[in-house]
C-alpha cells in the first residue's frame, strides 16, 4: 500500500468532482476489495475518497414501478437480510449470502460488490504478466494453471472470471444499475454493466471515469416462489465459485411460464443467455427441460487445459439448480447442493 491522502466526501457529487479533479483518486466504501488490492500493490491511489458519509444511498426502498431500490452504500448483509429482499427477492438474498463471509458482508457495499476484481492467480501475482493488470504484458493464465478460469466469452488476452455471487443473482433478476457521473445520472441494464475481456481486459465494466454507482433497481418480478442459488466450490463456504447458478422460475402448474438462469464462475461477467431462458418457456419443469436449456447456455464454451470439467459441471449445475428451484425449502446454508 502506498501512502495516500484521505478525504471524506459529503456527497456523491462532491466525490465525483474530486475524482475528476485529480488523477489517481480512488473511492472507498466498504473497503473490502480496494484495501486488499492496495496492500498487494495491485492498485495505488494518491487520494482516497471515503463516500460512506454522503448521507444517502444507504437505503432500500420500493420503487414507483413496484420494484425495489438498493442503495449503493447499503451493505451486503443489510441487503440480504432486508425484509423486502427476503420476501420478494430471496434469490438475491441467497446469492449474497453465498459470497465471502459474514464479517465481509457486514462491510462490503452493494456498489462495491459490483466492482470487485477477479481472483485470477496471475492477476494477483504482481510479477506475472497479466493483461488485466498491465495491458499488453500478456496473459499467464492461458498457458498456466487455469482450473478456475473462464470457459465462456474469453479472449486471447484474458480468461479471468468475475467473482461476485451477488451479481449472478442480480443478472438473473434483470436488475438495472444506476450511476452518476460528471454528465449526470444514467441507468445501465445489468447485462450491459460488466464487459467481456475482448481487446480491453483491463476494463471490468462500462463505468466511465468519474462515474459512481448510486444504486441498483430490481424489477417487480422477483421469482420469490421458485428460485435457487447453487454454488460449487472447493470447500463448503468462504471460497470463490468454480461454478454458480442463479435460477428463478415462474410456474403455471408444472409448466414453466418464465425462467431466468445466470451462471457465475464461467466468464468475465455473469453469464446469461436469453434464448436459453426462452427455450424453457412453455416446457415442463423437469430435468430434461433444464438439461436441454443447459446445452444452449454452454454453447460455444471453450475449455482450457485444466478447466474442461467446467462445461459438464455447469450443465449439471443448471439441471440441479432447476430442480432445487422447484423446492426452495430444501435449500441448505451456503448454497450447497440439495435435492
Amino acid at each position, binding site marked *: *500500500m*502506498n*501512502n*495516500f*491522502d*484521505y478525504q471524506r466526501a459529503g456527497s456523491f457529487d462532491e466525490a465525483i468532482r474530486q475524482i475528476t479533479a485529480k488523477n489517481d483518486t480512488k473511492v*472507498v466504501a*466498504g*473497503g*473490502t476489495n480496494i*484495501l*486488499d488490492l492496495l*496492500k*498487494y500493490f495491485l492498485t495505488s491511489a*494518491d*487520494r*482516497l475518497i*471515503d463516500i*460512506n458519509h454522503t448521507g444517502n444511498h444507504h437505503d432500500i426502498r420500493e420503487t414507483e414501478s413496484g420494484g425495489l431500490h438498493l442503495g449503493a452504500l447499503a451493505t451486503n*448483509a443489510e441487503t440480504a*437480510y432486508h425484509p423486502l429482499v427476503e420476501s420478494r427477492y430471496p434469490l438475491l438474498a441467497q446469492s449474497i449470502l453465498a459470497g*465471502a*463471509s*459474514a*464479517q*465481509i458482508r*457486514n*462491510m462490503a457495499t452493494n456498489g462495491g460488490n459490483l466492482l470487485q476484481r477477479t481472483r485470477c492467480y496471475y492477476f494477483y501475482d504482481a510479477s506475472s504478466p497479466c493483461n488485466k493488470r498491465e495491458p499488453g504484458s500478456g496473459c499467464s493464465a492461458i498457458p498456466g494453471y487455469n482450473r478456475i478460469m473462464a470457459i465462456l466469452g474469453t479472449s486471447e488476452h484474458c480468461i479471468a472470471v468475475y467473482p461476485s455471487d451477488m451479481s449472478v443473482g442480480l443478472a438473473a433478476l434483470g436488475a438495472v444499475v444506476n450511476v452518476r457521473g460528471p454528465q449526470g445520472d444514467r441507468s445501465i441494464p445489468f447485462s450491459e454493466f460488466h464487459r467481456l475481456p475482448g481487446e480491453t481486459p483491463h476494463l471490468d465494466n462500462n463505468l466511465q471515469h468519474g462515474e459512481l454507482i448510486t444504486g441498483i433497481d430490481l424489477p417487480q418480478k422477483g421469482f420469490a416462489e421458485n428460485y435457487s442459488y447453487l454454488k460449487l466450490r472447493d470447500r*463448503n*463456504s*468462504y471460497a470463490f465459485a468454480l461454478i454458480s447458478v442463479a435460477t428463478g422460475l415462474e410456474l403455471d402448474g408444472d409448466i414453466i411460464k418464465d425462467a431466468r438462469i445466470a451462471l457465475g464462475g464461467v466468464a468475465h461477467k455473469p453469464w446469461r443467455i436469453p434464448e436459453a431462458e426462452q427455450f424453457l418457456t412453455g416446457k415442463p419443469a423437469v430435468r430434461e427441460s433444464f438439461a436441454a436449456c443447459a446445452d444452449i447456455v454452454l454453447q460455444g464454451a471453450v475449455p482450457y487445459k485444466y478447466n474442461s470439467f467446467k462445461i459438464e459441471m455447469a450443465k449439471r449445475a443448471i439441471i440441479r439448480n432447476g430442480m432445487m428451484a422447484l423446492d426452495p425449502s430444501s435449500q*441448505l*446454508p*451456503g448454497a450447497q447442493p440439495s435435492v
Partner: protein
Amino acid sequence: MAAPELRSINLNINKEQHVLQVLPWVSLLDALRDHLQLTGTKKGCDHGQCGACTILCDGKRIVSCLTLAVMKDGASITTIEGIADGEQLHPLQKAFIEHDAFQCGYCTPGQICSAIGMIQEGKAKTRAEVKELMSGNLCRCGANIGIIDAIMEVMEGGSNE
C-alpha cells in the same frame, strides 16, 4: 503529491475514548495492535481471508484488516480485551475454555468476537447455520468441533442439526 499528513481520530474502544494520530494508510487492525498495543486482535492474513482480526464495530462484526483507522473515526469498537466484564468472563469465553475450543489460541479472539456478532445478528438457529455463518473464521489447529459446540451451548434455543 503532497505528503499525506497525520490525522487525529477518535475511537471509542472497549468503552474508553482514545485519540490517535495516524496516517491514512494505517489499517484499523494495525492501529489497534501497533498504536494501542491491543494485540488481542490477531493478524493472520491481513486480507480478509482468515477472520482472526474480527472485532465488533458499532455492534457489527467486521474484519479490522480491511478497513482504515481513519475510516472509523468516531466509531465504537469492541475487541477481545473488552469482552469480559472485569474478571467475569463472557459466557462464550467460559464455554470456549470448557469445550477446549482452541489449541494455539491465535484464531480464538476472532472466533469469539465473530460468535458474539453472529448471535446478535440472530440469523443462525441450527448447528448447520452456525457453521455456515462462522465459516469466515479459520482455525488451523482443527479446534472447529469445540468451537461450534461452545457456541451452540451458549446460544439458547439453538438445536443441533
